[in-house]
């Protein structure tokens, strides 16, 4: 597992360095305070990570579970395209602004769960006539089938779409941080963009792109750990 993580992370190091270099160049061209801009963007990233990571983990696992079980998962996957994270964040901010942390998490987790449910549902449907039929033929049924075959299949399929889910969640985190007044790279990005501060806005955007690349790489490593077929990708 550690080797897989290292390999995936090392593969994205040039991209991360390129993003850092681009942010430094743009910030330096925009004004004298480029070191402060980069420092502020880096300091704000952990808060965004603390919002994005649990939402992604929760959304992917719950979505995969619901997706392979059908019913609610199919409904969730069906309405998924209608509820991007920023729209959910706006709806929650306008109607239920009592618990911003939980609502922010829900606004980010639901779209990820919807995508995971769709992918897991498709994976289960694709395996019905092959793997699952063979397992049933060998007498496996009920919870053993779900936990040992169906859920790993669904989870693997859901993790195959993690790259786009990470990008979508990081994008929606900007709206969540802005609407709920949470500190983080998204809030920093919006404030800097509104103020026309090119250096700070670009540094915050580059930071979020770096976070996306890193999380996608870690997701890819975890996918490879769960499903050996994904290790070669």
């Amino acid at each position: 597992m550690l080797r897989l993580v290292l390999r995936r992370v090392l593969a994205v190091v040039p991209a991360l360095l390129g993003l850092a270099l681009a942010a430094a160049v743009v910030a330096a061209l925009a004004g004298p305070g480029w070191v402060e801009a980069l420092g502020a963007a880096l300091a704000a990233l952990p808060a965004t990570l603390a919002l994005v990571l649990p939402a992604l983990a929760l959304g992917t696992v719950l979505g995969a579970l619901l997706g392979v079980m059908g019913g609610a998962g199919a409904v969730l996957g069906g309405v998924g395209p209608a509820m991007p994270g920023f729209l959910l964040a706006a709806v929650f901010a306008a109607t239920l602004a009592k618990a911003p942390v939980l609502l922010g998490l829900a606004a980010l987790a639901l779209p990820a769960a919807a995508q995971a449910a769709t992918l897991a549902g498709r994976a289960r449907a694709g395996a019905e006539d092959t793997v699952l039929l063979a397992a049933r033929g060998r007498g496996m049924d009920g919870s053993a089938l779900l936990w040992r075959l169906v859920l790993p299949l669904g989870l693997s399929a859901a993790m195959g779409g993690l790259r786009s889910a990470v990008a979508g969640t990081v994008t929606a985190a900007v709206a969540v941080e802005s609407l709920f007044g949470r500190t983080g790279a998204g809030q920093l990005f919006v404030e800097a963009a509104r103020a026309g501060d090119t250096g700070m806005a670009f540094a915050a955007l580059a930071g979020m792109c770096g976070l996306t690349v890193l999380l996608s790489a870690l997701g890819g490593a975890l996918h490879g750990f769960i499903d050996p077929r994904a290790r070669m990708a």
Partner: protein
Amino acid sequence: MHGPAGTESRTDPHWRDGPWQKAGQRLTAHRPAAAGLTVLAALMLAVAAGLVAGGGPVGAALAAGHQSLSFTLLAGLGGAALGLLWAAAAVALGERAERAMMAPAAALTGLPLALALPLVGGLLGPQRGLAPMVMVAALIAAPAVAVIARDELRALLRREFLSAAQAAGIPNGRRLRRHILPNAVLPLAAAAWTALPRALMAESLASLLGLGLPAGVTGWGTAIGAAARAGDAVALAGPALLLALTLWALHGVGDGMRLAFATAFSTTAGGRR
């Protein structure tokens, strides 16, 4: 059993319907796509009616829809054109150029590209013009279209009927005109369609943050952002519902197009002489 062409079997729907009709039938047979098309048509009519009638929260939401949908259409068309050109150039220029051109496109699809629109909106200031925002939204949508279109073109170029046409000594220009283009149109249209929801999402997010459509132009995102900040659930309901419906419809039609046209693609793969 079907007889040879030119006999009474011409009256059979299987022979009467051409590939375009069959593709249309497959698209409308996909329930989310049929529902999406109906919703989109109803939305267009409602937005037009709202512009004429106006007034009230519903009229305001429909008027905002006019701005959002116009922006989406322009940016989506631009993004689709750019993406298709990107993919076609990559495939036409050979394997090495294809790798070099498609690697950045694939990398860009994994980034939060939609944030480029609020970035540019903020940097251009409140008096920003619509044209640069449309161009940035088109650039945001292009990489995903390029990746899907390249995959479609590669799949098409691997088809046996093209190898057969090449083996038969049909010249490149004729093969392109008579075999590749007619079979590529529908899958490429499905790839191009993905630019529309991407452009709408990017515009709505940027406008929600107050960094999208220029000052004085109210789209769904602008109305949703203002209502969310004011905590006004009633004002939020109309534009949020319309935006959600439009996104759902666009995705439904896109999914239907991918499914229907991929099947149409395989059944019309015989080419035309």
